[in-house]
């Protein structure tokens, strides 16, 4: 499945890119699976996802949890806890 990944704040800085299009392996079902797969793609990804519980995610611009299914997602974003306001 082809999907756009977007990164924000220190997740973006650690990975070294703002976004990328990837083909997810067929056995990936959930947001947590994507995180585990990304963490194995290189040092910069391992650094960004060193503490996966801290990193938040959104699918198609809505907040999701680690156990949310990614089937049908067009855009998955990863970012630290938000500090707006």
């Amino acid at each position, binding site marked *: 499945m082809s999907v756009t990944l*977007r990164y*924000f*704040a*220190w997740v973006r800085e650690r990975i070294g890119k703002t976004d990328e299009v990837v083909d997810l392996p067929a056995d990936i079902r959930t947001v947590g699976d994507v995180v585990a797969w990304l963490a194995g793609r290189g040092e910069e990804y391992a650094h960004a996802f060193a503490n996966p519980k801290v990193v938040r995610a*959104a699918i198609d*611009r*809505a*907040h999701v949890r680690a156990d949310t299914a990614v089937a049908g997602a067009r855009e998955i*974003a990863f*970012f*630290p*806890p*938000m*500090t*707006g*306001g």
Partner: protein
Amino acid sequence: MTVRLQREDFDVAAEAAALSRGRTDIGAVVTFTGICRDHEAGHGVSALILEHYPGMAEEEIARHVAEAEKRWPLLGVTVIHRYGRLVPGDNIVLVVTASTHRAAAFEAAEFLMDYLKTRAPFWKQEERPQGTAWVEAKEADDTAAGRWDRPSERDAAE
């Protein structure tokens, strides 16, 4: 409902006046302005750099405004959030709520600010004397937002 994300400053008085202009049914307008300050937890802050997720930020704020409109009898809501580099004294965020009576306007404004802090996709970096650092999320902000959760949402948030 008006939701705007912008680099430029906003005019608090003009935004508040715009909500009640030409109407005679509004009895209360509450404005909250968040302002960039020059210190945080004992260190100096010379600037804030605000990053956001374009598209999602507008949608997420609009979702919370819609939720506020369900919970309180609001007659108007305006939320403006700035992004980019801001220096101490600059406005960051504006929430304006209008209602027939003050309680709804006060509560809805506080609800919106609590959710903006923890759910709207914005991230702050501080320029400090020692260098630039990402602002860490505060547990107190999560606690403040959590008090508005209804029991079913509390389970979903965990």
